[in-house]
């Protein structure tokens, strides 16, 4: 491990890959959403690490970006989970392999 920045970026990359693997390999729609949340969190960690070790931390750019990203992720989680509940009411399943019709 070379520098602190590289350490944080590697942790973020690993978390992103774990989230991507979860989103791509799990059957359940809720787990896919959780994987997407993990990927968003990994991006936030990148933003904060660059803010901390970057040249002008007093401008707060990376920090603000991360805070707005957290807010957008919360909105995304609310709408996504609402969609999962609506689909479960229609088709009685949250298994993505069984959702193969676009007609409601």
């Amino acid at each position, binding site marked *: 491990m070379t520098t602190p920045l590289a350490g944080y970026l590697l942790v973020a990359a690993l978390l*992103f890959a774990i*989230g*991507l693997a979860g989103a791509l390999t799990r059957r*359940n729609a809720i787990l896919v959403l959780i994987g997407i*949340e*993990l990927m968003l969190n990994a991006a936030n960690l990148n933003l904060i690490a660059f803010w901390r070790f970057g040249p002008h931390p007093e401008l707060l750019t990376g920090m603000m970006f991360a805070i707005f990203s957290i807010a957008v992720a919360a909105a995304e989680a609310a709408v996504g989970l*609402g*969609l999962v509940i609506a689909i479960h009411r229609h088709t009685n399943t949250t298994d993505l392999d069984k959702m193969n019709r676009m007609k409601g």
Partner: protein
Amino acid sequence: MTPVFYVLAALTLAGGLATVLLKHLVHCALATTVAFAGLALLYLQLDAQFAGFAQILVYIGAVAILIVFAILLTRGAELPKDGVFSRTWFVGLVIAAGVFAVLGWAVLESVRAVPQQMAVPAVTVREIGIALVGRYVLPLEIVALLLTAATIGAVIVAMHEKERPKP
């Protein structure tokens, strides 16, 4: 690199791995909460106190609860009969491993070129508040609008539909 960083990184990554690998959805939600908490502690370790506490409030306080609600409302606590991984899990695993390889290579190749400031940035919550209503007031308003729209939209999407007469 301090030992604290290694402990927190291991906690976060273990939470993420457990989320992806565990079978029961409720256990997955708990592991996700551990990963979110580890990330909040990493933010605190990076001297970003405000972001760390926002992470705790929003993710552990709201998103984790929402996930548990969704799991219970969709009866996800029952174990599925035909496995928890999709038919094409191997392709997904290969794609994720490829993405990690590319990201790790890019980080290790380019991080020497980035100048690093080791001094601790002295940022108070007061300064963040002034920046939020000063320089960043337009994004703040847009986020407020987005959150309102998302709340209404989530309620409407998940609402019971009335039976429509067939045309």
